[in-house]
């Protein structure tokens, strides 16, 4: 089962998106684990993730987080998708990165 981790400043707004993504995954009967944390928890919570997605508001820390998570693909979520809480869109984005 794939593990998708979302990170933002405090893990608040990404947790809203996680819910939408879980709904989208369920609708597509795609089994995966999705969770949100604050960016400062990256090393402890996201080291074993298959993909790490960043809220657009912290996309500047992509370099630092990639460095902390060797071997884990890290990318920022598209602003518009993020704002509209487009769960299906972000899930598709995550699967594209994982080549799933």
């Amino acid at each position, binding site marked *: 089962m794939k593990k998708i981790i979302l990170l933002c400043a*405090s893990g608040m*707004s990404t947790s809203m998106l996680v819910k939408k993504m879980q709904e989208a995954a369920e609708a597509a009967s795609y089994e995966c684990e999705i969770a949100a944390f604050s960016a*400062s928890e990256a090393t402890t919570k996201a080291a074993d993730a298959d993909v790490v997605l960043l*809220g657009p*508001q912290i996309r500047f820390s992509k370099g*630092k987080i990639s460095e902390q998570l060797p071997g884990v693909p890290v990318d920022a979520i598209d602003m518009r998708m*993020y*704002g*509209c*809480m487009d769960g299906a869109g972000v899930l598709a984005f995550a699967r594209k990165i994982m080549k799933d």
Partner: protein
Amino acid sequence: MGKSELFNKFMEYMVRFASIKSVVALKDGFILTLPLTLVGSAFLLVACFPIAGWGALMSSLFGPDWAAPLFQVSGATFNILAILSVLGITYKYCEAEGCDAITAALLALAAFLTLIKGSVVAKSGEVVGGVIPGQWVGGNGVITAIIVALVSSWIFCYCEKHKIGLKMPEGVPTGVAKAFAALVPGFFILLAACVLYILCNVITSKTLPEMVFVLLQTPLQNLTDTLVGGIIIAGVQSILFWAGIHGPNIVGGVMNPILMANALDNQALLDAGQSLVGNPQAKIITQQVTDVFIKGGGCGLTLGFLIAAFLGAKSAQMKSISRLAFVPGLFNINEPIIFGLPIVFNPYFLIPFVGVPVLAIILTYFAIAVGFLTPFAAVQVPWTTPPVIAGFLLGGWQGALVQLGTIVLSVVCYFPFVRIQDKIYCKEEKQAAQDEQAATDPVGQN
């Protein structure tokens, strides 16, 4: 250099600044003090609930000393802010570097305690030794705490990365090996603290925290505690968020220790039995002002945006996004509106998104300066507390009213800009509907 180029340069520097190791550690580490100060606030709030007659009522019910146990709790949280900061910042720095974070944090705490005075002068003039003076482990020691944490972290990580330390032979349990590995960096850290203590004592006959407090912390606190300081804080975090970067996180990460020290100064005045209203020593700009009163509905006071959209928007896009954003907005989460509408890089919203918080801080500043609203002390509320309720908890009905004022202000300011954007969306939607119709109904084209 063109204006947009200048702006890009500014953003680039801010992003680079926000990614500096020490800044990240300061931000993430200071956040660790939050659970304690918030829980402490809850106890303090009961002790000083912002309605008239509360104290008298409680005294009549539980006796005159009813609040003492509550102050015990708030004291044990706020008054060790510097200790919490040393531990938190060192921990986060070393954790991110992949070093033994907890050992480093404990060493940094020892270094901090080495540097502060080991005695207090009693009222009678007698010097009492064998104490940790509360005066220096709370708000007054915060800047020293940050410096000690960063320097200790640096020494510790340097030693660990360059393998400077005692190496145990194979087969020694990891815990034991770790303890020995920390001996050398620990020695360096505490030796540095010891030398610094001697130097400060010889040169100025003061301790480092006392010097830092006078030379660095007080000027910084006084700078933030001005209308201009407040406007800069409010403006910069909005400009950053308008550019799609979490402004409050970056600005707050650096400013919060100082703004918190401002609030604790006010608490110290209260504890000394002074009133804060009209007291020239009281600080006006505190963390509560920059956290609560300029962020109703989220950074940029976007609750006003949503209300303006409910009042005047006709386009489907504006309506659906403001509906989606409303409930999170009540809890001051506004990423949906910032990225969804979007406000980010949207030229129409630069003016209100930056202007509204600036006006709000001016309003709040004067509400406090004229004595309508009492300056804020140690009581804080979580940043997700809905507007008006947050204002009430912090400042009684006056606080609720001022916060309501900031929201009315934001509705008025956002309204014309919402209308402009709405008209554009309406036009786009109409155009899209026409195109669609033309595509499905080729006869109509003739």
